[in-house]
């Protein structure tokens, strides 16, 4: 059947196009997609879901007050999340999707240093901003668009070691445990250096595979060196809990410290309250405060995971970004970077955020925020002090 062009069909076609056009125009607001990338499943999922939750809560608050005002345009924020399972290969796939089809310029995450270092060349080349929790030293070096949302071993290790030396002078022999990947190699190196400089004798340094849940052989080896204290460093909280329990069942009666990523509930669940008694760790937000409870309630609506300090850290980082974008008045990466750098001190939800790290990393893109020391007493976390940052 030949297509007939006459007045009727032309009129119909024009009407249809006009309707389609106006339908597009009548859509209220532009959408700005924000990326979230981290381990949403597996070990470390508590932290990954913390990123997702913290960013989503902050974005929802912005949307509730009308959207993000960037110059003359107001944007509705939409968070797009991907699971990297703490693996570099998955992170690369995810970032390619975020930068490509999803057209995202601002990404929160990843947590794994292996993931970060894998995607860094891609995001730096494209000028995509990353707000990472990854702890390796090379994360910030030679970068322009990467920001770290919370202090790492590099920033607080000397202070935590000094605190241990002062409060528990009877502890002299320390063993360190870390995961056998980029994160673990990096944090353990810094811990060993800090403990040695602090006057401790490092009697054992061990690595484990992230897929493990039985550490009795490793612990047998460690305990043969008679440590007074075991540093659990950046071991994921659930795994740390298992290590604590298995060590105690092998007869270990010494101390445990976890100066590197804490989650009291997870540790107590895995170790049992009795074995977890006295474990001291560092966290980026004190539990059971008003802010913690409020964010915890919102987080509970989004995920079936325990509330943890990553929610608070990423809530603050997201608010810092959104505020900086509004101050910059545009979405251009370099303008936003400049606005971020100028946006300090910034009022975070539990304290002030400032920039630091220039001396160690060559660029001041490390967020400095208070690091709280929490001891497990009777199965609950009790704040016992604060660590000073380098």
């Amino acid at each position, binding site marked *: 059947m030949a297509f007939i062009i006459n007045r009727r069909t032309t009129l119909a076609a024009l009407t249809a196009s006009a309707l389609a056009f106006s339908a597009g125009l009548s859509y209220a607001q532009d959408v700005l997609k924000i990326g979230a990338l981290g381990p*949403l*499943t*597996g*070990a470390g*999922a*508590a932290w990954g*879901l913390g990123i997702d939750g913290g960013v989503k809560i902050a974005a929802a608050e912005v949307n509730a007050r009308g959207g993000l005002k960037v110059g003359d345009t107001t944007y509705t924020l939409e968070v797009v999340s991907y699971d990297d399972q703490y693996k570099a290969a998955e992170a690369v796939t995810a970032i390619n999707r975020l930068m490509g089809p999803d057209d995202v310029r601002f990404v929160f995450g990843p947590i794994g240093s292996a993931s970060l270092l894998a995607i860094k060349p891609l995001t730096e080349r494209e000028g995509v901003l990353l707000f990472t929790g990854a702890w390796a030293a090379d994360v910030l070096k030679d970068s322009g668009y990467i920001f770290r949302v919370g202090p790492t071993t590099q920033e607080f290790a000397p202070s935590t070691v000094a605190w241990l030396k002062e409060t528990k002078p009877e502890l002299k022999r320390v063993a360190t445990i870390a995961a*056998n990947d980029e994160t673990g190699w990096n944090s353990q190196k810094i811990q060993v250096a800090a403990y040695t400089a602090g006057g401790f004798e490092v009697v054992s340094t*061990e*690595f*484990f*595979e992230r*897929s*493990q*849940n*039985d*550490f*009795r*052989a*490793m612990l*047998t*080896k460690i305990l*043969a060196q008679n440590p007074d204290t075991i540093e659990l460093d950046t071991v994921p909280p*659930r795994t740390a809990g*298992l290590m604590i329990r*298995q060590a105690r*069942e*092998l*007869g270990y009666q010494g101390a445990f410290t976890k100066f590197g990523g804490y989650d009291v509930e*997870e540790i107590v*669940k*895995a170790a*049992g309250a*009795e074995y977890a008694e006295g474990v001291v760790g560092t966290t980026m937000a004190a539990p059971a405060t008003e802010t913690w409870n409020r964010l915890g309630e919102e987080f509970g609506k989004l*995920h*079936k*995971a*325990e509330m943890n300090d990553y929610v608070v850290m990423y809530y603050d980082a997201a608010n810092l970004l959104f505020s900086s974008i509004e101050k910059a008045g545009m979405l251009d990466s370099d303008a936003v970077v400049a606005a971020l750098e100028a946006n300090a001190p910034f009022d975070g939800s539990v304290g002030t955020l400032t920039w630091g790290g220039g001396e160690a990393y060559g660029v001041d893109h490390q967020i400095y925020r208070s690091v709280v020391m929490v001891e497990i007493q009777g199965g609950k976390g009790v704040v016992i002090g604060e660590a000073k940052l380098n």
Partner: protein
Amino acid sequence: MFQQFLVVAGLSSATYMLTALGFTLIFGIMRVVNFAHGEFLLIGAYTVFVAQHVLGLDYMIALPLAALVAGGFGILAERLLFRRFTGDEIGGMIVALALAITIKGAVTVIWGVDSQPIDRPFSGSFEIAGVFIPRDQLFAAVVALVMVVVTWWLLNHTRLGLAMRAVAQSPEVARLQGIAPWKTYPVAFAIGCALAGLAGALAAPIYGAEPNMGDAALMKAFIVVVLGGLGSIPGALIAAVLLASIEAGISILFNATIAALVSFLAVIVVLLVKPAGIMGRS
């Protein structure tokens, strides 16, 4: 340290035996490589969680219940999925993988990614001459060994076991003898899955219940069964002890990464020298 090594290796080998037993049983009788074996372990572990926290049952009741539930799911899986793949090893593997992903996804959707709290019936350890034997691991090892013996007795001293062994040797000849393979398969599958569920229920109080716990178990079961010979039960038992000893020994001397390397190297060596496994029939 050597005595502690013996304890660590010994207790681990018992659980490896139990996990591998169900896996090799299913392959031996149905020639299905059950890649969802780890997920039946998962079902067992989560049954304990639900039994304790929703039904308020004691662990000692939850334990056999977990085996029954996993076995029940096994019968369902056999009837609905695996029946049409007996003899088709590739097809069976693929559908098993799909089942594994589905079960793990369902567990994650229902209960989330966090590890679930399991009430522990045992805590602490026995200390004998400076060697520590954790009570919970000892209990798990004892139950595992008992089940291994029960399964051996079932296979070698009952008519059902005789039927299963006949079908394993040759389904066609078994039919000629009046044994219906389609009645034997669900039972074999159920027993294999029940053993996996029991292994999961035993592991739950020791390591917690979380959606990924089946992965490592499947990997261990696979290594043990390949080393010992697919379908050979004595082979699986010997290989379980071998694997546990290698892992514990190398982990204590060096670290877990090298231990994993050595155990996989052992698999390669055994397969090169004796492709059917230590006691497998080709």
